[in-house]
């Protein structure tokens, strides 16, 4: 063979040279084997890392719908004009050629001159666009430089949120301009503004990856994350799965081409039990009380626990968080008195006041209280050394009269007579002091004495206070709604339900709907039907009787049953500084369909502040029923 012929010859020098060449070529082959075959993965990863930029594309967020499919939170297309810098490279070169000074330049100076040339080109394009859109646009040099150095692979946003007129102008005049392109970006939009804002929650800017997502991206397109409420708790379902695209860039970082590696999966829709019309009625009813009303309304279906409306005032507009919360809006949201971010229906502890007499009634009637037995009310009652005033006029009271006049004397006397243990037992069956597991992350549990607490320094004064819904207990309006529902539905203590189901945005895709069924009954009151009937009649009387404290809630055509309450809010030195007023009710008497609980902070009395609000809500409910009855609602869904 060619090579070894030489090796065999008696020519040591040539043989040495042959070996030298052989070894040299062998070395090269070994080196190439090492680089190209053994280290292939390493180098191809390097190559990919330097020439690909990964971009996170957020998925389209799912909607939040009401029971009838009306959107409470949806996405609104937002049109932006972006500038693709790589298409201006010829312009950059020309401008640089034009301004380039003669002779050699120091490196730093040349770089800044080049950057200046690029800025002028881009600025010209932007100014032309401004003229076309008839809107002054300003391109900040620093901002441009920032984008150029850090995000060259992405288009540079020039103007966001075009108006329809500007869109038309853009299409007419600028659409052919090099580098400019119209881009669509879905933005979160709450079509009803403040409506159900607390329930829905809000979004904040957050581009980071969710837990089971690709963690590393070179660039991330703007994305949001739900903070509280439904947006927060169901964020994972709503946000969908972000996709990834890769942008091939050249050595200068300009975009060369791009392709989508994984498309984003749109988020799912969350369907609530809320009925938009009822929710709106509840909120507007609350607003009639005054401009800065602090209060809450819960409307519940007493048979299955579906929350039809859950309003809290004052409210806020979750749209202010998109695209960014402004300073003024933030200040209003953090107002120390109004505290608009608090969902007062579930997130704040309140003394129930006289509406707690419903629990007293349950306990005492079950323990043997004769409703016909009359008690003399002197206008006050002395418990220990403390005098409790009775707002009910002095006189003789049986159960019905005591209930509708809300006589403190009657209920304290009977509460002490039949024992606090019975009251606490009923409270436990109502699960007072426990959360309702509402999926909004906005719930407090309230507080309620346990049987154990009664054995440790519990005084008759405490019992007296408990009987009138003051002192060592706290409740939320939602808990009171559950309590009222139990009276209305014959003793079932329900789990309130807010979310009906989670369904795919595209109905054609495979069915991945998650239904949240009604949970089994949480507890039974375990009282006789007669007791419940007595209380229901008493509640009816509270609204319909001429003497009743809740007269203002009466609605013609709907027999409303209710109980008013006014609790004193005391400071640390036991001075009364405010009142919490209540109206807990259901309707109609014969066949209860709605539970409405109204709570207003700082109202004059339950009957004066809350009953009229409830009345407006019932009126709206009635109107809606009549309307739907005349013409079946097309949006209604069967379950």
């Amino acid at each position, binding site marked *: 063979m060619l090579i070894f012929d030489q090796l065999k010859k008696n020519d040591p020098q040539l043989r040495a040279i042959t070996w030298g060449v052989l070894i*040299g070529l062998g070395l090269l082959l070994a080196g190439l084997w090492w680089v*190209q075959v053994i280290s292939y993965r390493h180098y*191809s990863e390097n*190559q990919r890392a330097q020439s690909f930029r990964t971009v996170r594309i957020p998925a389209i967020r799912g909607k939040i719908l009401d029971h009838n499919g009306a959107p409470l939170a949806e996405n609104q297309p937002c049109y932006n004009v972006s500038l693709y810098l790589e298409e201006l490279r010829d312009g950059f070169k020309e401008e640089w050629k034009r301004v380039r000074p003669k002779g050699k330049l120091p490196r730093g100076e040349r770089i800044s001159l080049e950057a200046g040339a690029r800025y002028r080109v881009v600025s010209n394009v932007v100014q032309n666009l401004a003229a076309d859109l008839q809107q002054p646009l300003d391109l900040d040099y620093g901002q441009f430089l920032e984008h150029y150095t850090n995000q060259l692979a992405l288009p540079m946003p020039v103007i966001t949120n075009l108006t329809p007129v500007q869109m038309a102008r853009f299409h007419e005049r600028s659409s052919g301009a090099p580098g400019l392109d119209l881009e669509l970006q879905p933005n979160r939009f709450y079509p009803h503004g403040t409506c159900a804002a607390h329930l829905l929650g809000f979004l904040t800017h957050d581009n980071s990856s969710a837990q089971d997502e690709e963690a590393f991206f070179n660039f991330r397109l703007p994305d949001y994350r739900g903070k509280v409420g439904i947006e927060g708790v169901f964020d994972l379902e709503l946000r969908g799965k972000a996709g990834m695209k890769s942008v091939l*860039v050249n050595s200068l970082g300009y975009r060369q081409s791009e392709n989508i590696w994984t498309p984003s999966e749109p988020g799912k829709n969350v369907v609530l039990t809320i009925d938009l019309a009822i929710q709106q009625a509840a909120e507007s009813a609350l607003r009639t009380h005054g401009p800065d009303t602090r209060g809450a309304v819960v409307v519940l279906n007493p048979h299955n626990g579906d929350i039809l409306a859950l309003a809290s005032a004052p409210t806020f507009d979750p749209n202010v968080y998109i695209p960014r919360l402004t300073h003024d809006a933030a200040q209003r949201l953090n107002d120390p008195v109004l505290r608009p971010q608090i969902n007062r229906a579930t997130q704040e502890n309140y003394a129930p006041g006289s509406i707690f007499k419903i629990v007293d009634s349950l306990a005492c009637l079950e323990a043997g209280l004769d409703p016909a037995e009359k008690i003399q009310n002197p206008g006050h009652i002395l418990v220990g050394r403390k005098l409790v005033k009775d707002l009910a006029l002095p006189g003789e009271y049986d159960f019905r009269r005591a209930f509708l006049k809300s006589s403190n004397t009657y209920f304290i006397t009977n509460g002490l007579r039949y024992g606090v243990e019975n009251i606490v037992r009923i409270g436990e069956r109502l699960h007072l002091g426990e959360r309702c597991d509402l999926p909004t992350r906005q719930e407090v549990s309230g507080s309620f004495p346990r049987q154990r607490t009664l054995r440790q320094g519990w005084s008759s004064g405490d019992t007296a206070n408990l009987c009138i819904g003051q002192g060592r207990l706290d409740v939320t309006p939602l808990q009171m709604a559950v309590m009222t529902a139990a009276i209305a539905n014959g003793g079932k203590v329900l789990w309130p339900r807010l979310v009906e189901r989670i369904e795919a945005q595209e109905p054609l895709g495979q069915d991945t709907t998650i239904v949240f069924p009604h949970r089994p009954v949480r507890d039974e009151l375990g009282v006789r039907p007669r007791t419940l009937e007595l209380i229901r009649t008493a509640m009816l009387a509270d609204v319909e009787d001429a003497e009743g404290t809740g007269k203002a809630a009466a609605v013609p055509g709907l027999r409303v049953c209710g109980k008013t309450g006014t609790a004193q809010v005391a400071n640390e030195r036991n001075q009364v500084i405010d009142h919490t007023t209540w109206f807990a009710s259901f309707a109609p008497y014969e066949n209860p369909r709605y539970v409405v609980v109204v709570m207003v902070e700082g109202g004059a009395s339950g009957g004066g502040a809350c009953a009229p609000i409830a009345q407006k809500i019932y009126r709206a409910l009635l109107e809606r029923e009549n309307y739907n009855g005349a013409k079946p609602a097309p949006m209604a869904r069967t379950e």
Partner: protein
Amino acid sequence: MAQNRRRWRALNNMFGSALKERRSNVDWLMLTALGGLMCIGVAFIYSATMANESASLTVWYNQPWFRQIIWYGLGLAAAASLCLVDYHILARWSLVAYGLAILLLLAVFAVGSMRFGARRWIDLGFFLLQPSEFAKLAFIFAMAHYLSRPVDELRLTGVFWKALGLTILPFALIMREPDLGSALILLPVGLTMLFVAGAPVRYLTRLVGGAGILVVFILVDVLYAPPKYQIKLEDYQKRRLLVYFGREALPAAASGAERAEARKQQRNYSYNVEQALISVGSGGLLGKGWRQGTQNALGYLPRAVAHNDFIFSVIAEEKGFLGSVTVIALYSVVLFTGIRIAGQTRDRLGKLLAVGIVAMLFSHVFINIGMNIRLMPVTGVPLPLLSYGGSSVLCSLIAAGILQNVDIYRRSY
């Protein structure tokens, strides 16, 4: 029948050998290998340059791949015409050629044009002549001619030193351009020729040993000595050395900003090597396909060097390890054919010429491919026939022509 056949074979043998006697002598294997290399050269110069918009917009006959074809044509013509004249006759002119080459090298200092911080070219209007390339050939001729004297004379130190001087003169001149790579090629070529000519091995070992010590000393000095005691190298040479040995050219007491600046500079200088390695490595076993390489198309491999000094990266990226092996196989055919010719040549002149050319081609191949995989520091050494460039192509083909000439006119066994 059988008899007939035997007679035919004898006849055939007779004419065949006679025929062989007359045209024995064009080595088709080597020619095929050269042709293969040239085809690869055109294909990948096309691939390396056409990704660039400005190159693809020029008229086709001005595009690099076509110009390269013209150079191949010119080179082949030059090689063929060299083969018309017996190398013994050519060798008589070797000192004249050597003198001319030295003059040209000197002329570079006077009228040479600056490119990339070095003065290596003479602008002839249509062509940038790189005299160092031709100096290599002239040097080989002169050395072969000088060393082809009887072996015994080589034992004389005077002759040895003269031969050394013959090497050092062009070496120093090319070094001054500065063109470290081309200059360094002369050393292994000269040494190999001395060795094959039969110069006493102890002289050579002393020489190599001494040079080695000197190189180590210079390296240690450049890399580790305090600046005051450092030998003055060209800035870029020093940086390249530092890059190769992975060190920062920085005093220990430098401030943070200086350090960052130096690191950035070093990144810039090591950038080519880094990118060449990524190109070669990301090619993998089979490569990404012709014109599918991204390193070059996206400009990571600088466009100024992709089609000349770093053409191998382009080939390796697009054709993978298989492509690299093919290239090396083609070179080895040329190299071993050269060694065969040297071995079969009876006269010392022919043998030395062949060995010198083999040494020169091998050094180019080894240094160039070696620098693509960081086996060698970056020096501007072209890859024979594959790199774009008139001077290099002409010289490589002329060198191949000389090998062929030796093969034709050698006094055979």
